[in-house]
């Protein structure tokens, strides 16, 4: 059983397009995240949601909009894609409570903007 799943695995698109990445977790976790891993392999937090409420929004352009229809899903919508958005995007979740922060990651979505 897949714990954290993302679709699609690969996404190739033209500059200026709008695209979405979907994420679902079946672990019963309350907190979900989006991370971006760039070509230099730095993994940076973008957003964090706790029980469908946004709790962290790092310095991310407002072209990026997360949406959480329920606590098992956190989708990422990106408007007006730019070349610099090319990266691997990871969804993650963590168990209830704030004392641990152990992250369970999805397989990633490799976004290529042409």
């Amino acid at each position, binding site marked *: 059983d897949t714990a*954290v799943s993302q679709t699609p695995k690969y996404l190739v698109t033209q500059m200026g397009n709008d695209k979405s990445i979907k994420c679902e977790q079946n672990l019963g976790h309350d907190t979900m*995240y989006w991370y971006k891993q760039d070509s*230099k*392999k*730095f*993994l*940076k*937090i973008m957003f*964090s949601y706790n029980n469908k409420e946004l*709790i*962290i929004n790092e310095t991310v352009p407002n072209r990026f909009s997360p949406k959480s229809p329920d606590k098992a899903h956190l989708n990422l919508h990106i408007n007006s894609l730019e070349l610099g958005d090319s990266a691997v995007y*990871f969804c*993650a979740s963590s168990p209830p409570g*704030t*004392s*641990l*922060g*152990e*992250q*369970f*990651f*999805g*397989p*990633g979505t490799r976004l290529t903007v042409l």
Partner: protein
Amino acid sequence: SQKIEQNSEALNIQEGKTATLTCNYTNYSPAYLQWYRQDPGRGPVFLLLIRENEKEKRKERLKVTFDTTLKQSLFHITASQPADSATYLCALDDAGGSYIPTFGRGTSLIVHP
């Protein structure tokens, strides 16, 4: 500024030896530190967490130490195997209350048969 530093050069070792990876940090006062493994094309996988009041943690062939005075964590894999080859990331929180980890860049480990 805050920094998490891991050796950017790959660590090459022979099978059976102990691999030791280093994570140094500056301008953090973490409540904990975590280690993750990442294989190519996959998401990171959580391995171990050590709290600020713990000196050492073990799990099977893995051992992590945490020295808050030196601001350093060491990650050891004993009796290394080629299957241990991967990138290992350290992550720590900033004790600011969010408990969301900030990741280092990772060190690539290559275990030769």
